[in-house]
């Protein structure tokens, strides 16, 4: 019936708004639990190992090739104006301001975010949350909070690593392959990159870390309790995190510039 259409639009909108509200409450509760003793520092370290250390290789490879491509593209553009000496600053600025935080976050969302969602989903299917409850352990504090804290802490570190590797990649192509002067590459970089650029990159990566951990854990907790539900939640976690990283990147850039 025709009257069903507005009703279903209304119902869907209400559902969406409710989900957003619930995810906000979920984030607040989980973060608050992280600051209530006893502190689970060991759990946070383990999660940092999972999100951070185990992402090092993939971040290294993406960082290296991003820097190399930037070196190549930048060189060909800059030589047209005879400004290839600026290659170092061009590579460093694009990586530190934009590509480092964004690409790194996208890689982590794909690797660690999806794993977080499916891990939580499986714990949910197999009754491990009530099992923790029955052992007098708060599942939110034990499972969720450490992941959020670890996500917020890991991303800036990984991004810093990405930045260094990327700049090195640009150096490999620019200086070693195409013959840009080494002194110019690093010298121009030092004068061009200001503290504001680095600070902006850190702010972005902190935000992205929170976004990935928040979306991935929330998708896991709200996954439908069957195998299909978990696989759907995992896909949704990656898609939602990736899209929100890009949207948030625009918002943050416009605020920081």
């Amino acid at each position, binding site marked *: 019936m025709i009257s069903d259409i507005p009703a279903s639009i209304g119902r869907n909108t209400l559902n969406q708004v409710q989900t957003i509200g619930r995810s906000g409450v979920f984030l607040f509760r989980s973060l608050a639990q992280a600051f209530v003793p006893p502190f689970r520092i060991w759990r946070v370290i383990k999660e940092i190992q999972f999100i951070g250390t185990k992402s090092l290789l993939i971040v290294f490879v993406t960082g290296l090739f991003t820097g190399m491509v930037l070196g190549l593209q930048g060189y060909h553009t800059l030589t047209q104006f005879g400004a290839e000496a600026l290659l170092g600053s061009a590579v460093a600025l694009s990586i530190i301001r934009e590509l480092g935080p964004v690409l790194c976050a996208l890689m982590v969302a794909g690797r660690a975010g999806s794993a977080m969602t499916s*891990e939580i989903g*499986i*714990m949910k299917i*197999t*009754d*491990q949350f*009530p*099992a923790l*409850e*029955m*052992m*007098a*352990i*708060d599942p939110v504090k034990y499972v969720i909070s450490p992941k959020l804290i670890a996500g917020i802490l890991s991303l800036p570190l990984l991004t810093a690593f990405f930045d260094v590797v990327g700049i090195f990649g640009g150096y490999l192509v620019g200086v070693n392959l195409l013959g840009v002067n080494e002194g110019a590459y690093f010298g121009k970089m030092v004068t061009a990159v200001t503290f504001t650029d680095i600070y902006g990159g850190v702010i972005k990566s902190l935000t992205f870390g929170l976004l990935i951990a928040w979306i991935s854990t929330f998708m896991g907790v709200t996954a439908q309790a069957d195998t299909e539900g978990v696989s759907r939640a995992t896909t949704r976690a990656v898609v939602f995190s990736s899209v929100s990283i890009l949207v948030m990147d625009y918002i943050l850039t416009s605020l920081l510039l």
Partner: protein
Amino acid sequence: MIIIENLVKNYGSVAACNHLTCRFEKGKVTVILGGSGSGKSTLLRQVTGLERPDSGQILFDGVDLSRVHKKALYAQRKKMGMLFQGSALFNYLNIFENIAFPLREHTRIADSVIKTLVTMKLEMVGLRGTEHLMPSQLSGGMMKRAGLARAIVMDPQVIFYDEPTSGLDPISTGVIDKLILDLNQKLAITSVVVSHDIESCFRIADKIIILFFGEIIAEGTVDEIRNSTDPRVMQFITGAPEGPIPFTRTKTNYLDELLMR
């Protein structure tokens, strides 16, 4: 001892618990029997504090679990052990760490003592030698026993079993039954078993409570239930497809629904 008074829990218009009153006595095995959807799992979730009732009281060791705050509830939980239907072992920890988990979380016992305690509990359930295996490497019956070892590692006063024998072969069922009885005797605890396995129930129960649509329709010893003349009880025990307990839950008339189209 657990005393349940006038417990009410509704899901929408469905009454999962309809003014339930019963007690689980210390040192005895109480079995809650009922078909699917009879409210037995809901009752268990409320008695363990996983869900709050709409009204009524659950007295556990003198504390009303239907009203307490999280901290007090957790304090009571340390006296409870629970065996979940799918055993709910942590899939990322091996059997030893699974069983040691509550000890590591709640006590400051030295590692060597934890090892002794875990070995003792594993011996009780006949799983010594599987410490290093992951839960996925165990069979269904072994997983249940490992889950049981974890449930008793803190020496609880009450153990809850959620369908402990469902999905097990006859021998594993017998092993679990024997374990429930042994533990009940050795540890002098309160055992509460939720089940729909009549045979196993008759072997282990000191007291049987039969639920039907959120209400207790029979309560008594094994003999009393066996000799019951209530047609609903008789149907449940014999597993007759025809009887006062309907096969279908639909309330609308079949013919009416067919003719509506």
